């Protein structure tokens, strides 16, 4: 061992600390700082968690696609894992988006789901498309072929996100019942609400980064354990 070796700063611990602080600040702002919305009432506070969770889902799918594209260029197998983990977390955050959105819809529209809403339907399509990523991935033997197919699928999936955003804004004139957070004039809310939203978004993205770092570390340790077990003569 190198005696002068310094302990590397643990990125997961730093991210977890930042996520905890930001989450505490976000919750304090949501329940004690931001005023109650005049038109929607108290239930509008769902927005400060629901929309950041939805945007974090897009962020994670994009991150998975970027690492997938990097894998296709560099053929580095570590990038396959760095593409898989955000896709997995994206599905968790996507599920949460759908459930929290349904709770909001139940109070705002009196129904859990409305097929006529473009934003809901396009989000569901993106979510289901990315769920199918796992069906594809686990139907192929581990190795470079699986990594290549998974990366191509992740890159194709991210293309649906801008299509969804364009679709929602094109459809605005026809079936606008879903509140639009951002339009061509910027944020569709007052200053304190926007500040609270930004803090909640930062908290959610930091939480997702923390989960990414921890899950990635767990999977790397698992891979190394399998390799050591093979070398030791046990079954992998």
């Amino acid at each position, binding site marked *: 061992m190198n005696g002068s070796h310094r302990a590397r700063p643990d990125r997961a611990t730093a991210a977890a600390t930042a996520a905890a602080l930001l989450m505490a600040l976000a919750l304090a702002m949501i329940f004690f700082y931001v005023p109650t919305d005049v038109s929607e009432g108290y*239930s509008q506070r769902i927005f400060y968690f629901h929309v950041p969770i939805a945007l974090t889902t897009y962020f994670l799918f994009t991150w998975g696609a970027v690492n997938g594209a990097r894998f296709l260029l560099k053929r580095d197998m570590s990038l396959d894992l760095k593409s898989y983990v955000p896709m997995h977390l994206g599905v*968790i955050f996507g599920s949460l988006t759908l459930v929290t959105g349904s709770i909001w819809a139940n109070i705002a529209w009196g129904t859990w789901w409305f097929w006529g809403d473009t934003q809901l339907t396009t989000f569901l399509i993106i979510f289901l498309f990315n769920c199918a990523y796992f069906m594809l991935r686990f139907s192929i033997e581990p190795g470079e072929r699986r990594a290549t197919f998974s990366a191509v699928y992740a890159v194709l999936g991210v293309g649906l996100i801008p299509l969804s955003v364009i679709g929602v804004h094109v459809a605005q004139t026809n079936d606008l019942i879903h509140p639009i957070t951002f339009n061509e004039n910027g944020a569709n809310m007052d200053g304190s609400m926007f500040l609270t939203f930004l803090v909640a978004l930062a908290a959610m993205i930091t939480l997702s980064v923390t989960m990414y770092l921890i*899950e990635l570390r767990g999977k790397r340790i698992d891979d190394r354990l399998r390799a050591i077990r093979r070398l030791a003569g046990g079954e992998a």
Partner: protein
Amino acid sequence: MIDEFAVKSVAAVYGLAWVVTLAYIGILNAKMGRMERQLDEIAALMEHRAASDA
């Protein structure tokens, strides 16, 4: 006056987010338990091999 149904809905959303996060931590804990067992198996294998060589 605050609508009771609205409060319950808000609590459901925020509670659900925490339940999912805690469930995720629980799954990670289960995975770590599995890795710990694998480490024990490897240690036993190495001990067995050392005893055979001796």
